[in-house]
C-alpha cells in the first residue's frame, strides 16, 4: 500500500508533503502575463499551475446577439488541460473530457452571476484556461486564476472571488462523535489526498467591497457563491469542512490582494 494520508496522518499529524492540517500550499501568482489579451494571469498553488487569459467584453457573436433581452454580457469559458499536465500523459479528444467540461460549466455559471455583466449589454466575455500541471484542487485554482485575470482585464466585480478545497483526514463515513473525534479537517488538498479522501470546493466573495477600516467585521458579509462536492461524507462533518474551507478562502483572498496591489501596471 503506498504511503497514504489516512494511515500515516493520525500518527504524525503531518500530511504527505509535510503540511499541518490548516496550511495552504505555496501560492505564487502574476497578472498581465500576456499583453495580447485584455487580461491574463498565471497562478500556481503547489504543483497545480494554471494560465488564464480573458478576451475582454467584445462584440457578441451574431448568433446570440439576436437573443431577446440579452441586456447583459455573456460569459464563455473554455478549459484546456494540457497533455503533459497529469502524471500519465493523457491526450484528451479535443479537451472535451468530463473534468474540463465540469470545470467550464461551473466557472461559466459562477462568473455569469458574479460579474457586473449588466454594464456590457450585447457583448461576450471569453475566458480561456490552460491547465499546465494538475496536482489537485483544480476547480479552486481555476477560480482564483480567473478572478486575477478578470481583475487584470478591468471587469467590475463586487469582490475577489477566491476558491479553496477542504477535506477530512479519514473516510468520515460514520457519524461524528463529539467526545473523541480523531478525524481532522484538511485544507487545500493535493492530488493523492483528493483522490483518496472526501473533499469539497468552496468559493466565497464579499458583497460589500472590503475597505481598509472594516477588515475586522468582514466575517458575516462573506457570501458563498460556489460549493461543489463530488465525494461522499457523513453530514455531521460537513460543517467543519465548510468552516475550514471558508477560512482558507479568506487567507487566499489576502494573498491575491497582495498580488494585485503588488503589480503596479
Amino acid at each position, binding site marked *: 500500500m503506498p504511503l497514504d494520508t489516512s494511515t500515516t496522518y493520525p500518527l504524525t499529524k503531518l500530511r504527505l508533503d509535510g503540511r499541518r492540517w490548516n496550511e495552504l500550499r505555496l501560492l505564487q501568482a502574476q497578472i498581465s502575463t500576456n499583453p495580447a*489579451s485584455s487580461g491574463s494571469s498565471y497562478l500556481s498553488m503547489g504543483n497545480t499551475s494554471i494560465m488564464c*487569459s480573458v478576451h475582454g467584453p467584445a462584440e457578441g457573436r451574431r448568433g446570440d446577439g439576436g437573443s431577446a433581452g440579452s441586456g447583459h454580457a455573456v460569459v464563455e469559458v473554455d478549459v484546456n488541460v494540457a497533455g*503533459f499536465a497529469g502524471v500519465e*500523459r493523457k491526450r484528451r479528444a*479535443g479537451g472535451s473530457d468530463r473534468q474540463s467540461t465540469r470545470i467550464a460549466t461551473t466557472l461559466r455559471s459562477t462568473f455569469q452571476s458574479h460579474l457586473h455583466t449588466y454594464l456590457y449589454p450585447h457583448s461576450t466575455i471569453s475566458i480561456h484556461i*490552460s491547465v499546465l*500541471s494538475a496536482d489537485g484542487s483544480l476547480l479552486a485554482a481555476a477560480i482564483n486564476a480567473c478572478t486575477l485575470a478578470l481583475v487584470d482585464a478591468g471587469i467590475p466585480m463586487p469582490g475577489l472571488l477566491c476558491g479553496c478545497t477542504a477535506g477530512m483526514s479519514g473516510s468520515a463515513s460514520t457519524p461524528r462523535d463529539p467526545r473523541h473525534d480523531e478525524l481532522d479537517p484538511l485544507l487545500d488538498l493535493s492530488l493523492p489526498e483528493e483522490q483518496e479522501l472526501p473533499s469539497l470546493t468552496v468559493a466565497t466573495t464579499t458583497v460589500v467591497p472590503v475597505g481598509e477600516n472594516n477588515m475586522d467585521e468582514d466575517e458575516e458579509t462573506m457570501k458563498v457563491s460556489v460549493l461543489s462536492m463530488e465525494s461522499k461524507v457523513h453530514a455531521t462533518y460537513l460543517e467543519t469542512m465548510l468552516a475550514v474551507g471558508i477560512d482558507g478562502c479568506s487567507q487566499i483572498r489576502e494573498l491575491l490582494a497582495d498580488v494585485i496591489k503588488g503589480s503596479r501596471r
Partner: protein
Amino acid sequence: MSNQRQASSASQVPHLSPAELSYLYTSLSLPKNPIRPDGRSPTQFRPLSAETNILPGTNGSARIGFADGTQAIVGVKASVEKTILAADTLDSRSLAQHGDALNREGEEGSAAVSGQGEWVQMSIEIPGYRDDDALPVFLGEMMRESLVGSVAGGSEEVKEMAGGLKGRLVINKRWHWRLYIDVLLLSQPLAYPLPLLSLTTHLALLSTKLPKLKSTGEEDPFFDDDWAVAEYLYPRSNKQSSPSDAPTYPVRPPVTLLVIAVGENVIFDPNREEIAVADAVLAISITRSSDSENMKLLSIRSIDPPSRLTQPGIPNSENVNMLGGPPASSNQSGGQEEVGGVWRPRRGGVQRSVITRMIKTVLQKGGVGEEVIQGLEGVKVE
C-alpha cells in the same frame, strides 16, 4: 472563442483592406531594401524570452514568449513501451538474420534494431482550432518529419545518437521509449506560429532527461530512480571550456525557419501582415550537421500564402461611382491587367530562381541558419 475558422492551411485571413495590402506590398517589394512595418532588417528576428524546465511534472519543458504576447509552452514526457516485432520481419530473410544474430549475441547487441518514426508523437494545441484541423495537423507533421528524419552523421564519440533521435529511443530489442511532445500555443496566433513552436520544441528537447538505465542487455528495463543522475535525451559533449558558458551539443534537434518572398526580396521571421502580402511562404528545417561545420537541410515545405484569399481592389477606371464615369467596356472578367497600385490577390506559383535564393540565404556560410543556431547555442539549458 472557438469559432470555427475556415480551415485553410495558412493562419486565418487577416482583415486588411485592399489599400493597406497594396501599400504593404509596395513597401515590402522595394528592390534591395524592403521597408518592414516594424522597421526590422530582412534577416532580423524579433526578440523573444525563453526559459526551460518550468514544469516539474515533465521530462523536459520550455516556454518562449514574443514581446507582442504570443507564447508557447512545450512539455515532453516519455514512457517505456514494448516493441511489437511486426509479422513481416518474421519472413525468412530477417529470420535468418535473427538466427545468426542470436548466436553471436554479445557482439552487435541492440545496434541491429534501428528506431521507428512513430515512437515520437507530436500534438499541437492552438486555441480556436480543433486538433484535427488543417493547421495543427500540418504543423505537427512538419516538425515531426524533420525531428525523426534527422539521421545524425557518424560522429564517433556519441554512439547512441548514431541513429538520430529515433535511434536514441531504443532501449533494447523488446523495449523502447515513446516520446510525447505536446505543444501548447497560449494566445491567438498573431503571426504564423511555426517558428515560435519549433524554437520552443528545440529548447524543450534539449532540456529533456531520461532516467538512467540500470538493467543491461535484453532483460526488462530497470531504471535508477535518482533524478539527479538522469541522462539528457540529447547527450552533451563533456569538452566544455568553462562551466559558466552554455554546454555544447554534438547533435542538436532541428530548427524550422519561416521565409517569405515578396517581389524580389527574401524576408525572415515575418509577422502576420507581412505574410498576408507574401508571394511565397517556405518553411525550411535545418540542423547543424555534426561532422561538417555547415548547415544541413532536413525538409522544405511550401505553405499556401493567404494573399490568394484576399479581396481584390477595384481600379478607378472600373469604379462605377467615380464621378459618374461610364463603366468601362464590359470585358471585365478577362480584361483587367495589372493596374499599378491596385491590390490583386496573388496568382500563380513562385519562380524557381526565387526558391533557390531563399534556400541559399538560409544554408550559406554565415547565413541566417547559422545565426539562429548560434543564438540558440547561447541559451543556457540547465
